[in-house]
């Protein structure tokens, strides 16, 4: 299991590197537009940037996990069972740092209501993104072109929509993520994330069971 952990940590690091560049890039764009002399910096700004920057690379890298990292891991001598659990664990592990950092940032802003609920909401958003990436990964590995189209549309809708709405909100000084911490929203997010994670796990298991290594 030690090998699996090391292997998927390296995969996560590849994804996280893209995320860190994205944080930097989006952060510069956002901050460049903030007029510090006229308005106060929204406490939701950095959590928004971090969440978007962490989720998008995950959606992009998900297919790579299925077409390269899983077959390579099997080629190197790992069991399918360990590949399965390693990948699922990596989704959970990947969700924790961004949500943790967001939680810490929100904790520094006493004006934000329901900070714990909001942090949980951001964690669930990360898990949703991970679950999506696993389902899209299976689709990509199976259907290639069609899945490329689906991935493009989903990424554009989810990521583009999230970023655009929040950019508009930032520029009009209305950025707020507080809705994510509301009880009914949290319930919907939790149920959706659980269902999608389960679906992703089932699809991944089915794929791995019959997977033939080709590199």
């Amino acid at each position: 299991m030690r090998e699996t952990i090391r292997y998927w940590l390296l995969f996560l690091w590849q994804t996280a590197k893209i995320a860190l560049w994205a944080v930097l890039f989006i952060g510069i764009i956002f901050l460049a537009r903030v007029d510090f002399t006229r308005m106060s910096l929204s406490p939701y700004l950095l959590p928004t940037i971090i969440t978007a920057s962490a989720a998008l690379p995950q959606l992009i890298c998900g297919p790579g996990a299925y077409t390269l990292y899983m077959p390579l891991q099997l080629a190197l001598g790992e069991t399918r069972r360990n590949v399965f659990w390693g990948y699922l664990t990596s989704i959970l592990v990947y969700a924790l740092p961004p949500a943790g950092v967001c939680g810490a940032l929100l904790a520094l802003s006493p004006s934000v209501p329901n900070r714990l609920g909001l942090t949980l909401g951001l964690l669930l958003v990360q898990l949703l993104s991970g679950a999506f990436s696993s389902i899209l990964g299976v689709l990509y590995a199976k259907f290639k072109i069609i899945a490329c189209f689906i991935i493009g549309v989903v990424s554009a809708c989810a990521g583009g929509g999230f970023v655009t709405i929040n950019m508009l909100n930032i520029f009009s000084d209305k950025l707020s993520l507080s809705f994510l911490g509301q009880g009914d929203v949290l319930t919907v997010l939790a149920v959706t994330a659980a269902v999608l994670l389960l679906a992703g796990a089932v699809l991944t298991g089915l794929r791995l069971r019959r997977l033939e290594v080709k590199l």
Partner: protein
Amino acid sequence: MKLICEHLTKAYSGREVLRDVSLTLEQGKIYGLIGRNGAGKTTLLSALTAQIPITAGAVTLDGAPVWENRGALKELCFSRELNISSESGLSSMKVRDYLHYAAIYCPRWDEVLAQRLIGEFQLPVKKRLGKLSKGMLSMVTIVAALASKAPFTFLDEPVAGLDVIAREQFYKLLLEEYQATGRTFVVSTHILSEAANVLEEVIILRGGELLTMTDTESLLNSARYVTGRAEDVDAATAGLEVHHGEVMGRSKEVTVFLREGQAIREGYDLTVQPMSLQQVFVALCGEEENR
């Protein structure tokens, strides 16, 4: 330690690409896996190392199934031919990253040897696999295989794309490693002229079936290339195992495999010559075409 496969069959949509293959690989030998394109060599290596599910049969290492058995898989290393044109995304991976991943999974990984081989082959470790030539890609697989130090190491077409000097270098390294460690190597190759001196045993696959598995020396000692008048050849070889007969006018040429105690009958005007491994392979597998 023994790796045994029994009645191994692998089928795709009902079409059998490996049929009832049974063989035993012992520790401390260099095996050559030979067969024509599509004979099932890569499929067999993949099945032996649990990289593909099999349709029927069993693969065991010292009695324990290899499938889903990390303990057994730790003893095996299958350094497969890298196909950078595939959609896997492998082409964007750097050489050093690929070797780093290999190192994670090989408990006996020899980093000193890996660095030595990288130097000898002048491998550009910072380059992406997709930027390497076919020969360079082969060198990457050779580094991974030799540095893995796995007791059973499988190399799929390791000399593909290598020039003659690099091929000689590879066989020299293989022998060095073999003599130093007594590891088992299974090398699939098409280039038999250089491999013949290195391979202790040959496994010949034909159309998905195990045609023969025997030690190279015995195979070569038993094979004779016989030419002469057709009736003389037929009379001298009657009752013997004859392959790849070709008639040209009144003359005939055949390959004969002699079992223990057998001999080509004397008293006929024939030319009898020993054969190279490549000629034996053509005699055994070339018939497939004519069947």
